[in-house]
């Protein structure tokens, strides 16, 4: 067991030799301890009992999400993206002891909305990445697959898009929007194959 050479400078724990929070030379990282300390300050140094959530953060996130939704409905997609991104950053910065499930639910919805905004602006790669995130967080949610399909079409990856839509349809066979998108995609696919012959 080796001894960790650290010191405390300006309320932060850093390595003794280089005064770095994350030091590749000393091969130490005190970032986690410092982040946790920062989060603990907002609860007066007390570790909340398991399952406790600070209402303030949830309120902020909900507010940003509503702002984003309002922008989206007003067709101001760029501003919607900014609002959603703010909410997402706050949601990712929840203190670690708050229930994971809550954070995942919030993030799934936020990423899905942001993906829709990216689609509206034809930023396919961003929409694709966000949609993949939604699926990773909440696989049985058909909306995630729907967004993924749309993003893939925009990128020109028609077959993969059709696969994604079919998977979404499996989770939610009643989804009208997926059925419609699937029909359009399959027609487009047939047309492209005819072209290549």
């Amino acid at each position, binding site marked *: 067991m080796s001894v960790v050479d650290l010191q405390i400078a300006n309320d932060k724990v850093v390595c003794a030799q280089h005064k770095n929070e994350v030091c590749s030379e000393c091969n130490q990282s005190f970032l986690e301890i410092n982040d946790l300390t920062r989060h603990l300050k907002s609860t007066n140094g007390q570790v909340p009992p398991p399952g406790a959530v600070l209402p303030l953060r949830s309120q902020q996130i909900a507010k940003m999400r509503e702002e984003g939704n309002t922008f989206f409905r007003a067709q101001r997609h760029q501003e919607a993206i900014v609002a959603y991104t703010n909410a997402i950053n706050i949601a990712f910065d929840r203190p670690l002891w708050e*229930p994971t499930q809550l954070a995942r639910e919030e993030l799934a919805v936020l990423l899905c909305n942001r993906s829709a905004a990216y689609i509206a602006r034809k930023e396919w790669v961003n929409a694709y990445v966000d949609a993949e995130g939604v699926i990773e967080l909440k696989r049985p949610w058909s909306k995630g697959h729907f967004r993924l399909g749309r993003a893939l079409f925009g990128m020109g990856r028609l077959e993969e898009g059709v696969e994604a839509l079919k998977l979404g349809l499996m989770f939610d066979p009643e989804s009208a929007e997926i059925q419609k998108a699937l029909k359009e995609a399959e027609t487009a696919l047939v047309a492209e194959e005819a072209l290549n012959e």
Partner: protein
Amino acid sequence: MGSVWLAIIYIGGWILSMRVFGYFWKNRKLAINDAEPWFGENIARSQYIALLQQDEPEATETQLTAALLRRAMEGVVRVLSMREDKQVLANLVKQGTVGDDIWTQFTLSEKELEAEIMNIVEEANTFKENWGQSILQTASEMVMHEKTKQMQKELEVRREEEARKQAVRDSRKEKKTLKEKKEGTDAPAAAKESTTAAPAPAAAAEVEATA
């Protein structure tokens, strides 16, 4: 007179062989103990202890709390990991694919881990009464939550990767359409552009208002 010597040699021989045996036996035990522990160094624990020992300036209670939580998280991760490994290892040892000494190594590390967990609980109780009871539960939640946070970094990495790939795809398509234009086949090029535009969003995208 001779038989006394014989008796002494006999007893001496016994004592000698006992000693020799004991020497080799101890070495065997030491060899097992010197064997590599199941996990590498426990950094979270070392950091906690180092913080405890700080005296100019002393670590604040909040910092120590944070360090203990990280130590608990590492403990939880190791317990889960060992649980997974245990079944697999038991099967391997039964089959004979793997030696018995690895099993001994494993059980020794298990005991060590148990002691570490008890240590963590004791430490927690010194901060606040009964915190020892809930610290492990809190730590488990934190371990799961950290995985979700890592997603954020992964998303960023993926973003850059996909952007690169898409740029390559787009430039290939451009080259292809330019080639086709040069070959005097304007019709397919125009048709290609319309097919990629067709599935593009025409209907208004819905947005989730409530979670």
